[in-house]
């Protein structure tokens, strides 16, 4: 077992370093490391075919509970997460193709009469709400692009607005199960429903959003002065963003169906895999004429990245490494839940600020299971703690989360460079504020 453990840790460390270095495409890294885990850890060191079968977890796909009903216990590759992500990606591409996101941004800008401060506040809130259901990359991609466009027309500096939108996208993502990949992993592995997240991390994110809107307003109010005299008639018509009226109505309905299914899935017992599969199929049928275009835009690399990652983490799980880390945290905290919460939230936030939060969350989920030792209340407390730590920690630096990279990149392409100093000056204190608020709410409500 010692050899298996050494190999599992070595493969995990190599994978983590290569993912952080970003020299080789991430999915190649995790798939190769996953293959090495199967071969060296389970095959050569453990000689355990059952570990391979459990980690590949293909049998879960044919279990009835995987789609509808009680979700089966599983380790290794989390197929529910992968199918759900794929389905949501296909749905989002359908919405983007119809011009939904650009229309929404332009419509809201028109509703606030193109006034800079109301626009700033509206876009922050919209960023958070959209990120609750849609991946933050898509949210920021459209929001930042429209912000730059409006900034040119209204002659204001778009950087404060983009920085605030990025932060709020990360915050909004923490509110729901489908908002951020760590939450999908946490929810799927620990069997939490959409509503569970909404009533726990959602509440924390909601309170934090109010504080953060005030914070960013106070920080940026002087920079958001528009020099332009606004002639509303010269502004782009939101309707121009819609590429196809039928496509627009259809994709909006599909989005509505997805939201309703997600909110009610605790009662309907439809799994996230089922929801992902349904929205994907409906989108594909509805957009059959543009199927090739939509499918070509789906980020299949992230799905492959997840598969490899789950196998490597499965290696740590099967060899008992994660159980030992859980025991270590338990010993350090002396079994005190508040200390456990503090350790998990600050370590997660700090790590997520600098490294990809997805491998981190995937590794921490089995540790949480170990720490809670069958106590469902403790497991839930630690799950919400991990969720807030990983989701919000990523907002602190320009490299912490995908939305930060995309937002700062869109700004740079339009001549507004955002370096580490400029980014962290507003985002790092905001992160500390939200982590503190989250920790206090968790202490008061659960400990």
């Amino acid at each position: 077992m010692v050899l298996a453990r050494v190999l599992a840790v070595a493969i995990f460390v190599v994978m983590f370093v290569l993912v952080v270095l970003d020299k080789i495409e991430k999915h190649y890294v995790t798939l190769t490391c996953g293959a090495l885990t199967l071969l060296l850890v389970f095959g050569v060191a453990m000689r355990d075919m059952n570990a391979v079968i459990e980690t590949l977890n293909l049998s879960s796909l044919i279990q009835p509970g995987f789609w509808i009903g009680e979700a089966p216990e599983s380790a290794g590759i989390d197929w529910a997460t992968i199918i759900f992500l794929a389905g949501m990606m296909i749905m989002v591409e359908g919405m983007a193709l119809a011009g939904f996101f650009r229309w929404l941004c332009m419509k809201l800008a028109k509703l606030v009469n193109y006034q800079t401060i109301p626009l700033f506040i509206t876009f922050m809130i919209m960023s958070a709400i959209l990120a609750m259901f849609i991946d933050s990359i898509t949210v920021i991609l459209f929001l930042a692009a429209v912000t730059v466009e409006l900034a040119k027309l209204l002659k204001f500096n778009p950087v404060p607005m983009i920085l605030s939108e990025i932060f709020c996208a990360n915050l909004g993502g923490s509110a729901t199960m489908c908002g951020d990949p760590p939450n999908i992993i946490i929810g799927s592995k620990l069997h939490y429903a959409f509503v569970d997240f909404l009533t726990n991390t959602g509440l924390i994110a909601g309170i934090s959003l109010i504080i953060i809107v005030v914070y960013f307003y106070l920080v940026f109010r002087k920079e958001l002065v528009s020099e332009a005299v606004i002639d509303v008639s010269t502004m782009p018509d939101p309707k121009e963003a819609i590429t196809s009226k039928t496509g627009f109505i259809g994709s909006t309905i599909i989005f509505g169906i997805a939201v309703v299914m997600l909110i009610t899935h605790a009662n309907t017992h439809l799994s996230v895999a089922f929801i992902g599969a349904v929205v994907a199929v409906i989108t594909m049928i509805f957009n059959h004429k543009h199927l090739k275009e939509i499918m070509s835009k789906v980020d299949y690399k992230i799905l492959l990245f997840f598969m490899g990652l789950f196998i490597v983490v499965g290696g740590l799980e099967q060899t008992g490494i994660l159980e030992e880390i859980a025991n270590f945290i338990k010993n350090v905290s002396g079994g005190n839940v508040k200390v456990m919460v503090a350790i998990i939230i600050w370590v997660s936030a700090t790590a997520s600020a600098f490294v990809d939060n997805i491998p981190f969350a995937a590794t921490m989920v089995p540790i949480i299971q170990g720490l809670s030792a069958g106590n469902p209340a403790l497991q839930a407390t630690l799950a919400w703690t991990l969720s807030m730590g990983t989701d919000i920690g990523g907002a602190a630096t320009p490299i912490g989360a995908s939305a930060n990279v995309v937002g700062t990149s869109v700004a740079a392409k339009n001549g507004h460079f955002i370096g580490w100093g400029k980014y962290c000056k507003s985002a790092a204190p905001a992160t500390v504020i939200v982590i503190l608020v989250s920790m206090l709410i968790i202490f008061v409500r659960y400990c």
Partner: protein
Amino acid sequence: MDKQIMIAIGREFGSGGHEIAERIAKSMGIALFDKNLLEIVAEKNNLDLKEVEKFDEKSRNLFLSRKVNGFSNAIEDTIALMQFDHLKECAQKGESFVVVGRCGDEVLKEYDHMLSIFILGDKEDKIARVMNKYQLSREEAIEKMVRHDRKRRVYHDSLAKGDWGDAHAYDMCINSSRFGVEKTAEILVDFIKASL
């Protein structure tokens, strides 16, 4: 020039590659893009030239930046992309030009009428040229050469598929020490004219 021709020149530091590029551009009567490319994109995008100069022809810091779905938040990458976009724009307009460095061999490889050339030189000749040009000691000249060549290799290889200085990535590689700067430029002009 009636026919469009785009010449991408890569060069070792001290090989006289830049001077050769200048001679080719002058002889053919076409534009030369070198450091002035940064000035062009800075003006076009309302950027402060002094602010962006330090990011020109540099590779991104792997620990301080990230790439997501083709988006990079490294200023070095953005500056490079702006220059690449300008080169592609000129190429699409049918303009003829010589571009020094800036991954021209990679950026323009999809276009017809493009030739990529790499200019190298014997070590001693390069040292002598650098010592003379920058008034440096031998050690300082060697250090400067090594530093610049490393910077160019890392920048090129981080953004291009082919390797910097690898003969397979270019239409022609030539050693300027064999014929000197002037004659090398003449040979290359003949080569370019033969390809038209």
